[in-house]
């Protein structure tokens, strides 16, 4: 099928099978390899992206369901090539990324969490990130990073 969708604010078109995984559409057809594959069965969250603002596992979304939809990947998170998003900044400063393979998905999950809970409790944070497996950090520095992003938002009075 000819698939047209918006990715990171830009309209993109490609020719794919209707059941192709959004993950493969992004990585192979649209050359956006920032979204990672860890398990291919919706378990690890490394392939998390936003579809119409909602966090999804892109390995479980067939191409035909994103026709005309708005997709955001890790490549679209930073406001510019010079600037980082507050969550990216916090992961960088507070040890939230180690090997980096879960990081794109984890950052999107963290953004989804903060959209629902701007000041998450520990319990909300643990639950909100439970779909994104990290083998390096034991999650502790990821929690630190999310809390730092919240603190920065408060300090700067950002939304």
């Amino acid at each position: 099928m000819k698939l047209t969708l918006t990715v990171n604010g830009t309209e993109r078109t490609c020719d794919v099978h209707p059941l192709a995984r959004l993950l493969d559409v992004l990585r192979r057809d649209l050359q956006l390899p920032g979204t990672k594959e860890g398990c291919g069965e919706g378990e690890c969250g490394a392939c998390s992206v936003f579809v119409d603002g909602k966090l999804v596992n892109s390995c479980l979304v067939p191409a035909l369901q994103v026709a005309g939809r708005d997709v955001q990947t890790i490549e679209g998170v930073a406001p510019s090539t010079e600037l980082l998003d507050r969550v990216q900044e916090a992961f960088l400063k507070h040890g939230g990324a180690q090997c980096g393979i879960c990081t794109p998905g984890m950052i999107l999950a963290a953004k989804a969490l903060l959209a629902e809970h701007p000041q998450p409790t520990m319990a909300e944070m643990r639950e909100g990130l439970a779909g994104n497996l990290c083998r390096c950090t034991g999650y502790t520095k990821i929690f630190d990073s999310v809390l730092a992003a919240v603190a920065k938002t408060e300090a700067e009075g950002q939304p």
Partner: protein
Amino acid sequence: MSHKLSEFVARSATSLPEALSLLAEPADADRGPWRPLAGGTDLMVTLAAGTLPVGRYVDIWPLDELRGITVTDESVEIGALTTYTDIRLHPLLAKEFPLLGLAAKETGAIAIQNRGTLGGNIANASPAADTPPALLAYDAELELLSRSGPRTVPYSRFHSGYKQMDRRPDELITKVRLKRTPSDAPGHTVHYYRKVGTRAAQAISKVCFAAFARVEGHRLLNVRLGLGSVAPIPLRCTRTESVLLSAPLDEPLIRRAEATLAYEISPIDDVRSTSPYRRRVTLNLLREMLSRCQVRSDST
């Protein structure tokens, strides 16, 4: 995958009638009947694993008329495409049918909950699914729709064997109906849900126990038990329910209920757990559930 993607046919339905007419098409010799595709959280896993049958898939995700939660005085109707997230966040469900929200919260994690649908969870027919025990405990009804019209099936009779169910190929599950308990009904309500998974999140259940009970004094006026992962189908345990309704709730009755429940379930050994564990924990959960009923009855 063992099949090439190009062997699969898939298209998005633009309307419910279109979806129904595709489902009503006779089975193709090579590719079988059209099958519905909802949020994809189960189907895409089997596609990647190479176990999804080659065939024709109609994507019903765009059909907004199958989404949403409608409340009337007597009942709540949940559209088949309603996601776990929608269920988890619905205030009336949380108040009157809390087991559903708990089940939704225990299904996968946020990204799964944003795509997985109640209808899909039912139609996937896994005995380990998280919402069916809750639906059994609430004695839900399913509405199925085909070009010949709607049909209502009590959920407790929907699953007939492992991955087998009372749905014709031309039918679509459209909604789940839950009867509300009148506020002047006698006794008080106990809702109980416990999923025993392999870990605290993103787990497949080893035992799932949902129960709805109306309690007055030391008697159960009504009780429904829905269990997952202890039989080939999501299991309504009517014999145990009968025992529990037969006499005031005391230790001898609990023992009889345990014995009956042990007879009703048929858990197996698999990569996730063992039959003895599932058996023991099921009975422990029954006891925990009944202790909640007793606590309430002691305090009233």
